[in-house]
């Protein structure tokens, strides 16, 4: 489903954030990605969504070669993914409902169907009562759940989350992890970057570890 072959990423300032990284994630897998701060976790996730382009190597996502992707094909790659960003990217000038509506809006979904889907996604993350609230009024955990709802509302086959439990206490983190598990159970491929040890202790799942941009085996 996702595979990296000898991928390196050098940023324009010359810093090499990923060095010769190779791995494969199979369809329906739930994989955790960990490593110290600055190890290159976010860089790796950005390469999958073509937010950054690799300097060397090749990346395949759902049988698409990301290297060869033309600029006007990138939106369609991103539509097949559900993305949760480390800096959340919530729009604070609109309600929770409108934020979650965004992915459906850019696909020109019919209004009624879309509203139904938004409510279903909010229900899934336990935010249904807050649909008319503005994001500033949400707690940290609620904001994270808003991001999850926005990432899954269009029912992607791959879910990619960057630090979804950052700054949350253990109970909150577990409840959010529970949401990811439920998506994994219905066949969604899930990749979560985290350095939350309470998640990493769960030995059911494969863990990829980055150290200074290199994958630790």
């Amino acid at each position, binding site marked *: 489903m996702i595979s990296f072959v000898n991928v390196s990423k050098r940023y324009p300032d010359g810093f090499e954030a990923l060095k010769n990284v190779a791995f494969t994630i199979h369809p329906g897998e739930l994989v955790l990605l960990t490593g110290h701060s600055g190890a290159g976790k976010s860089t790796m996730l950005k390469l999958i*969504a073509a937010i950054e382009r690799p300097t060397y190597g090749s990346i395949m996502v759902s049988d698409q070669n990301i290297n060869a992707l033309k600029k006007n094909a990138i939106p369609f790659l*991103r539509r097949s993914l559900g993305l949760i960003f480390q800096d959340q990217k919530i*729009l604070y000038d609109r309600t929770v409902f409108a934020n979650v509506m965004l*992915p459906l809006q850019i696909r*020109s979904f019919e209004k009624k169907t879309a509203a139904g889907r938004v409510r279903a996604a909010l229900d899934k993350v336990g935010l249904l009562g807050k649909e008319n609230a503005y994001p500033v009024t949400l707690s940290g955990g609620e904001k994270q759940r808003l991001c999850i709802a926005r990432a899954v509302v269009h029912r992607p086959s791959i879910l990619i989350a960057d630090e979804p439990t950052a700054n949350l206490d253990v109970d909150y983190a577990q409840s959010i992890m529970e949401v990811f598990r439920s998506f994994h159970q219905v066949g969604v491929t899930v990749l979560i970057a985290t350095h939350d040890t309470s998640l990493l202790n769960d030995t059911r799942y494969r863990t990829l570890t980055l150290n200074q941009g290199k994958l630790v085996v």
Partner: protein
Amino acid sequence: MNSWLSQHWQALSQTLRQLVNTPLSSLLSIVVIGIAFSLPLGIYTLLGNLQTISEDVVKMPQLSLFLKLNATQADIENINSQLEEFPSIASFQFISKEIALQQLQQESGLADIASNLISNPLPDAFIINTQQISPDDLENIRTTIKKWPEIAHVQVDTDWARRLDALLRLGQLAVLMLAVLLSFALIIVVFNTIRLQILTKRDEIEVSKLIGATDSYIQRPFLYFGAIQGIAGAAAAWFFIALSIQTINESLIELTQLYATDFHLSHLSLQDSLSLLVFSALLGWLGARLSVAQHLSHIEPE
């Protein structure tokens, strides 16, 4: 098709919402465009009105043929028969010096002067209506008749209309140049409004790109906005002109009653008005297109 339509409908409603949400700045730029456009538009309308007058006059060319003061009855009859055989003359009328004097006396204000004259200073004259002919042919007739004996002077009464016509054409050129200049102004105004809009919507654009919005989806509301701004500006200009014409016509009523004519200014024709709207929509769209090309590419998600 259905989804294509709904995409455009979505962009349009988003644009209209934007207009309503920022009423002051929207109104301001529409009024600015309106004022800029009403200048060439006003002159154009005025020229159009003057042109109908000059065209009416040019369409019925008239020559005045003045005889020498010592012309005899035989000369008059001679000229009369020559005119009867002359091609491209529709009709003519003889006005003797006595009748001319009478007419002069009847005109108010001049009666005193006329009755104080010792002898009649006026010449015999013919007024000639030609068929519809080109200005060159008219000029030929004039020079031919001028060479006849006992003719003192041949005057083409449409000369002033032709000069006016030439002047109007010059005016039209000036309007065209002004319109081109102000079209650039419209493009710049729209360019700048869209630039500001893109700046304020930076986050939304970035997030939209991240979750897979296509460039054309992101551009669409801005392009609509530009086109609508152009149309609204042109409509404002049209309205300003309508208001001015209304005002001028009201004060013209008094004047025309005095002269017993029915002259009034008319607004742009339907066709001209529609062209104006379409043209300014295109200009607005172009301004938005340029702005979007310039500013959207700078917003790359990271």
